[in-house]
């Protein structure tokens, strides 16, 4: 049962660290916090949901507009923020490795060629993740800076940032 407690703890922490981003804006959609709140309840009560995610207004199919989603879909202009916050851990790792599905998806959200994007991100890694505390929205800001200053990459992207 120790494993459970630890897991619950980790998720409590994840919830706490993202809770400040609840009022979205440049800091992201707050979806990260919603996700982990979901998780926290899920693990803590052990019994919180019956098979899968518990009902969450964010993902309801026809709730209308909520946070940065509409009828359950992330709004187009928030897609990058959403993806980066939801998949931050995986992105962090794949960006250092120079390949991976999350990285590929991120390149596509930026409208850049995967290989050019991956190479640029990898060589500017310490600039994109300056500290161990860098969060997903800071990462996106840094990433925008890297793309803007990398002329060869910028030319491969359909969407300039």
């Amino acid at each position, binding site marked *: 049962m120790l*494993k459970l407690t630890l897991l619950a703890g980790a998720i409590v922490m994840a919830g706490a660290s993202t809770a400040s981003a609840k009022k979205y804006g440049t800091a992201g959609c707050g979806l990260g916090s919603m996700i982990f709140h979901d998780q926290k309840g899920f693990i803590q*009560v052990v019994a919180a949901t019956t098979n899968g995610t518990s009902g969450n207004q964010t993902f309801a199919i026809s709730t209308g507009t909520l946070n940065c989603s509409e*009828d*359950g879909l992330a709004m187009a202009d928030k897609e990058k923020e959403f993806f980066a916050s939801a998949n931050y851990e995986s992105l962090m790792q794949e960006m250092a490795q*120079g390949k991976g599905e999350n990285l590929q998806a991120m390149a*596509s959200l930026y409208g850049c060629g995967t290989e050019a994007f991956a190479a640029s991100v990898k060589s500017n890694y310490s600039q994109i993740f300056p500290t161990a505390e860098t969060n997903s929205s800071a990462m996106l800001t840094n990433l925008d800076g890297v793309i803007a200053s990398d002329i060869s990459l910028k030319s491969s992207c359909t969407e300039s940032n």
Partner: protein
Amino acid sequence: MSITRLLKLCILRSFFFFLLLVPLFSFAEGDPTSVIAKPADSNRLERLLAEAHAKNLASDPQWLKLLHYHRHAGALRSDVDGGYFFLSPLGKWDSRAELDATLRAFLSQEDLSPPLDSGMEAGRMHPLCKFRARLHFFRERLDLADSLLPKVDCDRYQRWRDALDPVGATLVFASSYLNNPASTFGHTFLRLNSRGDSAALSLLNYGITYAATVPDGDGLAFAYKGIFGSYHGTFSIVPYSLSLQKYSNLESRDVWEYDLALDSNRTEYVVEHAWELGAAWMRYFFFDENCSYNIITLLDAADPDWRLSESLAATAVMPAETVKLLERKGLLIRSRHRQSLLSAFRQKAGPMRGRSRRLLRQFMQPAPDLAGLARDTAGISPDSLSFILDVALDYVQYRKRRSEGHSGKTWAARQRELLLMRSRLPTMTTSKGDPPGAGHPGSGSPLESHATQRIGLGMGMAQYRPFLDLGYRFAYHDLNARESGFLLGSQIEVLKLDMRVDCGRDCREGVRSVGLQGADFLAIQSLTPMDDLRQPMSWGFRIGYDTRPTGSGRPGRAVIGEGGVGAAMDWETQSGLACLPFLLVQSKVRIFHAPVWEMDAGPQSRSGFRLSFGRNVSWLFENSEYLPAPFRRGLESDLRTELRYSPGRNSEVRAAVSYLDGAGEASMTLNGYF
């Protein structure tokens, strides 16, 4: 913040939002309230109704599926229990009333949508915008020209549908997760594949999932409520990447994806019907009307000729069984296995030896031994170092996600060091792990798993007296069963009953007694092997009923509760021989009637091993030592050994010998899974 508080906040917020928007609603989409119904409308409606009745659409299989009509205790009625779904008050029971009401609503200039506060729906919508699959159905079956329908702008649906831009769907199976009773049997959901996102970009797709909404703090009542339908289940749409983060990375569950053979018309039906179901809710039943059942009924609505829900077992709908059902119907075209973060780590780290393994171990430490690291990395090729780092990074990520406070900070710092080191090394050109068929035999696809329920017929001798055994088990898998498609070392037994016919000296001379020999209400074991890299804990518990040979004042029949933790290991050879030894230290409580109601309790050790030769043969050896307090009865020692052979996926023969406190018993059992 708890989910309930979050929900309250949302409701409160949307309420104020609503107040602000009330004056705007008369201009909202599909709300032509100012238009007065023309007399010609009633003629059109009468014509359409007559046509629908003449074609008997009310009993059309697809109409019934679109309304989620199924037989419940002989009567046909809808699974949908509430929310915004029926346009007729009789809709749940009367498919014709709902048909008439739907056509009437479609042709009506007036918006018949319910008021805003009646459900999850924020914003009113004309039924034509809401019931898209029904409209699709009418267009296919009736002479329904667009000119007959009121001019309604379904902007909201159109935006949603265009954002999804579906070209197909994939069934996703997340394997079982022992740490959450709700997910013990796995989970299935549907991924909608967008035109813009190729297979490589499937992370950007959305999944349609069905789940129960469970308030915080239901704790023990959860099981009861989940099984007997106290929770509301709803469909929701979740970004696929987010689901994968949860299943693969947080819960360490392997995921299988099966592309479905859906043409564009059926895909459109699925999307439209998911939209229709958005504000509906159904009572959630853990065993039958669960997530997998409702994914099946969603598919059924796209093509009733598949007859999917009719082919499901009546007693329980297991996620893996629904995958098999779709395979039998020829609906699966391509599959893909996604390893969880942890199983990718285990697969890659497993064969590493010598310096690589030493390095890996050092990278996996929260605080590195710099001198040792410098010594071991000297002269290593950048590619080898990259590979080792990649394996270590999977582990560090796994640990970091599970750590908090100081330990979390330590892992984050460690991760950053490794990531910086990794970013300076070359990108690996070979594809990252996951060759088909690799991994432990136990990690096979759900399609290879044995079925859920089991019946058995056995015969044997106990203390020189023959007996016959009849066994039934409701679910799901035990330690000595064929492990393909299950987690190695896992056991989940729900409602296992063993009846014994005791023959006296000779069965031909008549039956001496018939009785319940043993039962498991719930028996779960999770044996997770440890090695030099990871030391996860194993655990297990059981609530059941046992019969033991009486004598030396010991209780014969007793209700048992036992549970505890321990350790397991795993050795495998290339030739398919695998050994899983384990040791658990448990507490045990026993209630019995001998000759008055009594209870004893004490520590118990359970140890043994499982030896498997390929997937069709395995041998389980178990010993338990129980020391009940008050201690006057002394140690109770049980030994049991069982050999299994599976000629096929759903059949097996087991030969067992056991000594319960020295009283011997031998038996041979034939089991069938269904």
